[in-house]
Each structure stands twice: as structure tokens, then as C-alpha cells.
């Protein structure tokens, strides 16, 4: 003791616990997933359906209280092939991260595409959700294991371009 190298750094561990609320809007969405349903929300008929719902339309802050079920099929609006590990994702590398616009939805959301050779992933590709077995269904995004190609003809870029 005392003859070691000078102290140049210290480690100060921090551990804080929080009880988070999903909020009312996201709760409805998550509970839907536990029943294999993808629920979005809109302010009124004719307005875009937000999936997942955010409680309000971010453009206007208008409440989006009308729940609308959307399809579990959709179109790849854009994607990237992830080849770098990150702390929050436990997937084997590389994997494909897609922004998928579900049929009936007004915004795309991020998920993972599997069962598709990397070189075949493309913008406009039609995909569908693959759900976990019934026993594993839970009010969580993980109830959708991943998306996979649907084999339908691609959607022209012009039709989805505005949804990036």
C-alpha cells in the first residue's frame, strides 16, 4: 500500500431504479400484440393511423383516441444491414433492420427482417410479421419475432417515398 502507481482515475458506480409507465396509448398497442393484433390510433376517420400510437398526432398534438387495427403485412420503406453489435440488441450479426409501413398505417416503424438473403433485401419489398408461439405472446414488441418476405410484387418507390 502506498507505493502503487498514482491514482489517475476513479470508478463511481451508479445504479438507479425507475418505475416507468408505458402510458395509455402504448399500453393499448402492447396489449394488442399479446393478442396478435397490431393496433394503431388516429384522431378521427380520414386521418393517418399512428403505429405504435403516440397518444397524439405529433403534428397537431391532437389526441388520437380511435383505435384501428392494421394489417401485420406491410412494405419495406427503407432498411439497413447492421453488422455492428450494440448493447440493447441481442441478435446475431449481420441482421436487417427495416422501416416497415404496415398496410393501413400512416407511419413506418423499425423492426427486423429475417428469412431473406441479404442481397435480396430492397426498398418496396412486401413483408409480413412472424409472431411468437401463443404461449410466448406478451404485451411487448417482442411478440413479433421478426418480419419475413411475403413473395408479393414490390411496391413502386414513388408510392412509399414519402414515408421515410
Amino acid at each position, binding site marked *: 500500500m502506498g507505493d502503487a502507481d498514482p491514482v*489517475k*482515475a*476513479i470508478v*463511481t458506480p*451508479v445504479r438507479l*431504479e425507475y418505475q*416507468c*409507465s408505458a402510458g395509455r396509448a402504448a399500453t393499448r398497442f402492447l396489449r394488442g400484440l399479446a393478442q396478435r393484433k397490431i393496433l394503431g390510433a388516429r384522431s378521427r376517420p380520414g386521418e393517418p393511423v399512428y403505429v405504435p400510437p403516440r397518444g397524439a398526432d405529433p403534428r397537431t398534438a391532437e389526441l388520437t383516441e380511435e383505435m384501428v387495427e392494421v394489417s401485420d403485412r406491410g412494405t419495406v420503406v427503407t432498411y439497413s444491414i447492421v453488422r455492428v453489435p450494440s448493447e440493447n440488441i441481442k441478435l446475431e450479426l449481420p441482421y436487417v433492420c427495416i422501416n416497415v409501413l404496415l398496410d393501413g398505417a400512416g407511419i413506418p416503424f423499425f423492426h427486423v427482417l429475417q428469412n431473406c438473403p441479404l442481397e435480396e433485401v430492397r426498398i418496396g419489398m412486401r413483408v409480413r410479421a412472424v409472431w411468437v408461439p401463443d404461449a410466448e405472446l406478451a404485451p411487448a414488441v417482442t411478440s413479433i419475432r421478426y418480419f419475413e418476405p411475403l413473395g408479393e410484387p414490390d411496391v413502386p418507390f414513388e408510392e412509399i417515398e414519402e414515408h421515410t
Partner: protein
Amino acid sequence: MARDLGEGVLRGLHVLEYPYKRSLGPVLGPFFTALREQRILGIRTRTGRVLVPPAEYDPETGEALDELVPVGPGGQIVSWCWVARPRQKQPLPHPFAFALIRLDGADSALLHAVDAGEESRLRTGARVRPRWAEEPQGGIRDLACFELAE
């Protein structure tokens, strides 16, 4: 992770946890190195005040400081409070005092824990001395706590 409370809104535990690593620079480095050797250092300002813990700069003017000087190890309680129900992360598992302690030779006070057994033994102005950690790591907790010196 999510707790399902029936019909209510979903709630879940979120943990923010990280072992933050803090580089120390030219003043706190020697301060913690000295603590590991059971010595306490302060720093002298241009006007002659001695600050403990030492700062790289004068708190009033921002002027850079570099004259480290030994202080303590004994000192005097400037203020204190009695922590009847210690939290798990705090220095002592049983009731103790947090105190502002002016070490001998210092002009400012250091915040640390005082192990006094019971509240009635404490008073402002009481003399204290350090109790050193058995396995120093280089850090403020190399001072395990202070104890009454009377």
C-alpha cells in the same frame, strides 16, 4: 420486464446502471493518491485560504490553483444531520451522521459521514478524526468515515 397489472397501464422497471470512470487531472489525482496513503491534501488559494477537497481553481474567481498542502487528519464538525435510516449506498449500514467537517489547517469543509453511535453524542464543534478504509481503492471512500475524537 413489463409488469402487467390487469387492465391498467403497463409499468416496468428501468435500471440506469453504469460504472462511470472519472479521470482526475492534476489536483484530484494527487488528492486521491494521498488518501490511499492515509494523508489528506488541501489546496491554497491566492488569498491564502486552504480548500478541502482541493479544486483546480478558485471558486470565487476561477483562477487556476496548484499549491497542494497537507491538512488534518483531525478536524471539527461545522454542521451535521442524523441519518436514522441509512440508504443502502451510503457509507454506513447503521444510523450515522452526514457532516461538514473543517479539517485542521483548512478553511473550507468536507462533506463526509461520522460514525457516532447515537445522535445525542453529536454537537457542532465536536472534534473528529478519520477512520481509514481497510482496503483503500483510491477514492473518497478510502476515508471510511470520521469518528468522534473526544
